[in-house]
């Protein structure tokens, strides 16, 4: 039977098990949208800005492990997706973006709403396609899904000219793909695995750094087995948070710039470092030449191009983390490493990540209260900045994929749409968006989407009146010249009410728990504007490009109470 291009796309999405599409229509995709009602299995969610569609698909994919799908029209619709696609690329998230393109006859002639979106997204997609023949469409979609979620996942863009949506072709969805240039290595090389096992068995001070690759390959049990059998302390990257239960005795939290002192000390002192599905980002390593100076590095990753990119790997193993660990674990000898583990525990006691007693409203305290009241069961989605680090540090994540945060790109504005996407994917889980007052204002319009779809996202704005993370750098490294970082905010409570979302403002410590409880008791979305101490800093901190020796810890001095006068008000500018 012959189908139109639009029907072929929809049929294929159904075959791939897609249930939700985040999108925004326009001229080039009207034929596609016109076809959607024929496929009631495909729930289309109208966002308020295409960046929101890409982030929502990203949040959905991270929370569910499925592929996230978004649609946009040609030109500005497609370019609005760009930040979201780049975000998914840097964090290896399987997102498929379908964009409309102008009529084939007009391509390359600067037609109305024409942009070369495959050219633009070339360096920020795992792969992309411009479909010039409707007969190729089904094969391309098949390839797209295969590429998006196998190997190292990543975003794929399919650009479809308007007339290709309308043209007809015989529909045969291929069973498999034929991509001679794409054959991810899954099984690690046995000789390398043997070497790694030997190094681990002989290690005195081993440490594991687990990254997002553990989540992607679902290697949770294998990681646990390795850590417990060989008594190896486990630290994670920001994107690995939760892949190993943070309440486990061998868990030493997050590493890197705002990681735990003891985790960073452990890396510094380790003799064997086992890097699992992580890529030695500079926020993790600090000064590369001083990173893990005594360690033999075992680097396990599915992407060969990551091996040796940032840090030398003494024993590289290319493969799927889960499969490699299954093979590796068979050769691991159980040991006791009391001395080493005790050393880490001593460091943990000496440099705890606690919250000081303070009469003011501390952002860390807000995060901790959300943790207590949600009993650690919520999915936490963040914006980018100080609040993101406090969320990662002070919420205890015991389940994988429960911290959803923009790591590689550090995209302010990710929080709200990604939280929405996560909530759509996990309707029975509590989703909290812990956002900054700056980040929130970047994609605030998605409040309308949340309401239209009745997604019960709970929003906590950590309102410090600043682009806080930048302010912190200015304070510490630029003599406290706060250029362009004081930020005024609208009345978020009124804004929320304008969107029919109930909201509260919290100024005092004792109001925190009742407000969170009220939000939890409410069935729909809820917003709380937490007016926190404006000049609180994130500690510990390893300054950019510095070493573990230069860790800055929280100065143990009383901190100023909240001063409302410090806040920039819309009314006085």
């Amino acid at each position, binding site marked *: 039977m012959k189908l139109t291009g639009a029907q072929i796309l929809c049929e294929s999405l159904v075959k791939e098990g897609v249930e939700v599409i985040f999108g925004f229509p326009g001229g080039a995709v009207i034929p596609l949208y016109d076809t959607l009602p024929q496929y009631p299995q495909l729930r289309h969610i109208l966002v308020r800005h295409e960046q929101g569609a890409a982030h929502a698909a990203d949040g959905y994919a991270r929370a569910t492990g499925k592929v996230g799908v978004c649609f946009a029209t040609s030109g500005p619709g497609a370019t609005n997706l760009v930040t979201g696609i780049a975000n998914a690329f840097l964090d290896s998230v399987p997102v498929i973006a379908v964009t409309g393109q102008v009529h084939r006859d007009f391509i390359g002639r600067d037609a109305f709403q024409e942009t070369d979106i*495959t050219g633009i997204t*070339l360096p920020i997609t795992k792969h992309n396609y411009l479909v010039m023949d409707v007969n190729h469409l089904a094969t391309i979609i098949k390839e797209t899904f295969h590429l998006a979620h196998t190997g190292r996942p990543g975003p794929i863009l399919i650009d479809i000219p308007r007339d290709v949506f309308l043209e007809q072709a015989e529909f045969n969805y291929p069973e498999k793909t034929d991509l001679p240039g794409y054959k991810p290595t899954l099984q690690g090389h046995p000789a390398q695995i043997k070497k790694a096992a030997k190094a681990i068995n002989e290690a005195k001070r081993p440490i594991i750094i687990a990254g997002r690759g553990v989540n992607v390959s679902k290697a949770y049990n294998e990681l646990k087995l390795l850590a417990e059998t060989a008594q190896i302390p486990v630290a994670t990257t920001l994107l690995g948070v939760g892949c190993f239960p943070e309440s486990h005795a061998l868990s030493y939290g997050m590493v890197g710039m705002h990681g735990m002192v003891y985790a960073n000390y452990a890396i510094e002192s380790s003799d064997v470092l086992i890097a699992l599905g992580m890529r030695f980002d500079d926020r993790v390593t600090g000064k590369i030449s001083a990173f893990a100076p005594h360690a033999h590095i075992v680097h396990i990753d599915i992407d060969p191009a990551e091996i040796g990119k940032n840090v030398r790997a003494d024993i590289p193993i290319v493969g799927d983390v889960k499969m490699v660990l299954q093979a590796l674990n068979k050769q691991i000898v159980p040991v006791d490493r009391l001395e080493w583990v005790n050393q880490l525990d001593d460091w943990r006691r000496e440099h705890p990540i606690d919250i000081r007693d303070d009469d003011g409203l501390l952002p860390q305290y807000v995060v901790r209260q959300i943790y207590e009241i949600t009993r650690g069961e919520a999915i936490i989605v963040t914006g980018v900045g100080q609040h993101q680090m406090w969320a990662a540090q002070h919420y205890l994540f015991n389940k994988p994929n429960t911290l959803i945060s923009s790591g590689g790109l550090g995209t302010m504005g990710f929080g709200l749409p990604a939280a929405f996407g996560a909530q759509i994917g996990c309707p029975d889980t509590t989703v909290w968006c812990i956002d900054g007052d700056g980040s929130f204002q970047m994609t605030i319009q998605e409040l309308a989407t949340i309401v239209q779809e009745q997604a019960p996202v709970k929003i906590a704005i950590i309102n410090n009146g600043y682009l806080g993370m930048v302010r912190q750098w200015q304070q510490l490294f630029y003599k406290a010249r706060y250029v362009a970082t004081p930020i005024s905010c609208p009345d978020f409570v009124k804004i929320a009410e304008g969107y029919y979302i109930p909201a509260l403002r919290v100024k005092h410590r004792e109001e925190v728990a009742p407000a969170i409880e009220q939000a939890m008791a409410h069935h729909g979305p809820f917003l709380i504007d937490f007016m926190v101490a404006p000049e609180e800093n994130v500690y510990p901190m390893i300054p950019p490009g510095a070493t573990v020796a230069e860790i800055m810890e929280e100065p143990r001095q009383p901190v100023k109470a909240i001063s409302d006068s410090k806040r920039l008000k819309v009314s006085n500018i």
Partner: protein
Amino acid sequence: MTPTKHILLALVEDKPGVLNRMANVFRRRGFNIHSVNVLETIEAEGGDRPGLTRVAIVVSGSAVILGQVRKQLERIVDVVKVLDITTKDVT
């Protein structure tokens, strides 16, 4: 680090944009492209699969990151294989 000359031979799928994708990797890693030779396409047997094309590229850049560049080229879906065929007498 002084840039040195290298010759890479790539086997790629004959699809639009593949040279563009490769050039992008060289650009990002600061390599200068001296010449690109696209050799005749080996037609695929049957079906409408694109054939395979060999591309010989002479570049100059850091020898240290050349291995990395090769792997980044091989990461491109349309690129099947990349060989470093530089010999000592190439300058």
